[in-house]
């Protein structure tokens, strides 16, 4: 048996420790259950999101992967009937603790959504908004610098540097999505959550985002929900397969896609159900 075996029956699902940049779990979920009213959407999820790695969450629609992703920066708080139990930690700190400032948490754990959603403002303002409200800069020069570096990290600088004052909504879909990633980066997050960031984009724009994810990995911890199995295989180091609210299998992406241990994982990724 290879070293990449994971045991999903055990209390904790710790991914195998091979060739990871830091081998540190950035975020941890322990016995995470989520209820929407009476209905339970997630069942005792135990997972470690490793630092400076890309973790892909895959599974059929309604399996709970987006629900889980949204737990990681408390996006589910805004849903009235939603209740989360269990522990989720960021650097060993419970993010559902009463002392935690949710706004601050979401600055540390940024999010990019399925549909590009730039503010109806200029490209510059889209990026500058976050740093400004979080008080990250003291003057205009610093703010300018954050805008530039964020756009550069998102691979958008060259395309927009001459029209920073034009509206962000005027960009193409792929550019808008990279603008949203730049906006997320601008507040210096530690973790970036991406919920199907490429599903509204064409293949070229998708490739650019994937390339970007690959670069961002050097500095950020990334969790991505995707319906494209090929994308999960391409961009991630760890893959978690969710089914009917359960974390079925979690391990090295390569192992999941070449030699999955669970029948359900195999059935899903080979296109036999879902």
């Amino acid at each position, binding site marked *: *048996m*290879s070293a990449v075996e994971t045991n999903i029956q055990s209390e904790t699902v710790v991914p195998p420790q091979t060739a990871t940049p830091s081998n540190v779990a950035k975020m941890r979920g322990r016995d995470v259950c989520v209820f929407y009213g009476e209905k339970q959407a997630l069942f005792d999820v135990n997972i470690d999101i490793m630092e400076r790695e890309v973790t892909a969450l895959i599974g059929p629609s309604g399996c709970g992967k987006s629900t889980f992703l949204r737990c990681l920066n408390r996006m589910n708080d805004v849903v009235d009937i939603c209740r989360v139990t269990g522990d989720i930690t960021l650097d060993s700190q419970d993010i559902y603790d009463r002392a935690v400032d949710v706004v601050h948490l979401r600055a540390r754990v940024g999010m990019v959504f399925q549909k590009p959603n730039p503010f109806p403002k200029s490209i510059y303002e889209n990026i500058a908004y976050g740093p400004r409200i979080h008080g990250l800069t003291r003057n205009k020069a610093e703010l300018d610098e954050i805008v530039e570096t964020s756009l550069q990290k998102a691979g958008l600088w060259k395309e927009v540097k001459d029209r920073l004052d034009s509206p962000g909504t005027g960009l193409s879909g792929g550019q808008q999505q990279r603008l949203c990633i730049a906006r997320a980066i601008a507040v210096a997050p530690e973790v970036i959550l991406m919920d199907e960031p490429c599903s509204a984009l064409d293949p070229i724009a998708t490739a650019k985002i994937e390339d970007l994810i690959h670069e961002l990995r050097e500095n950020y911890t990334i969790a991505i929900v995707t319906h494209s*199995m*090929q994308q999960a*295989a391409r961009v991630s180091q760890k893959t978690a397969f969710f089914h009917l609210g359960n974390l079925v299998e979690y391990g090295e992406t390569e192992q999941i*896609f*070449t*030699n*999955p241990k669970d*029948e359900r*994982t*195999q*059935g899903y*990724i*080979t*296109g*036999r*159900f*879902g």
Partner: protein
Amino acid sequence: MADVSHGHIVAAYDAEFKKLTKLISRMGGLAESQLANALTAIEKRDNALAKTVKDGDKEIDALEREIESLVVRMLALRQPVANDLRYIVATLRTSSDIERIGDYAKNIAKRALALNQLPAEPLLRGVVRIGRPVQTMLKDVMDAHLQGDTGKAVEVWEADEDVDALYTSLFRELLTYMMEDPRHITPCTHLLFIAKNLERIGDHATNIAETIHFQVEGVALGERRPKADASNYATLQPEDEDGDDDDDDLREDKDESDA
């Protein structure tokens, strides 16, 4: 081993798997009968049969090309993963092993044609003696491939050692004959090549067995591959009259190659 050829949401994908399985089993079946016929052609000194084998290899080659293009098509269109991917890759590898086996059978048939022009050689049965276990290996390994039977594959893998041992002993026998009478050199050289071809077929069957293991288990078969025979490196000096010394020479060579 879950059957790869059913259960996909896309039915056409299932159909492609069925076609791939059909092609590889036909290819394996052909290789088996080519080998059987080549051996019969030697045993019965049957020129017509040898010619049939010589011509029959084209069909195996054509099947290999067909499998190759189907595999490329499936990889491009379906992006297979997990057991599907392993099955497709395994089938592609197996097809190239079978293609080589077909070439060896053809070569044996060609040499049968040459041998049949010479006086009957008593050592023919030695070659047939290697042929039998090789045939069994080939048949078993193809069954194991179609059934995804790792246990059977490992048996084939282990049987290769016996074939290597038979080859080594035949090699020595042939050398002795050639030293006794130079007129034996031509037929014995042909027989030696035939024996080597059979031994190589065994190696390819072993490769297929390893491929099956990877296909089913997802991991390689490990390091304890049967040792290669030492006979290639064995030496017999014509002036050396003492048979016991010959034995020692061979034994030493084998030890060295094992170490």
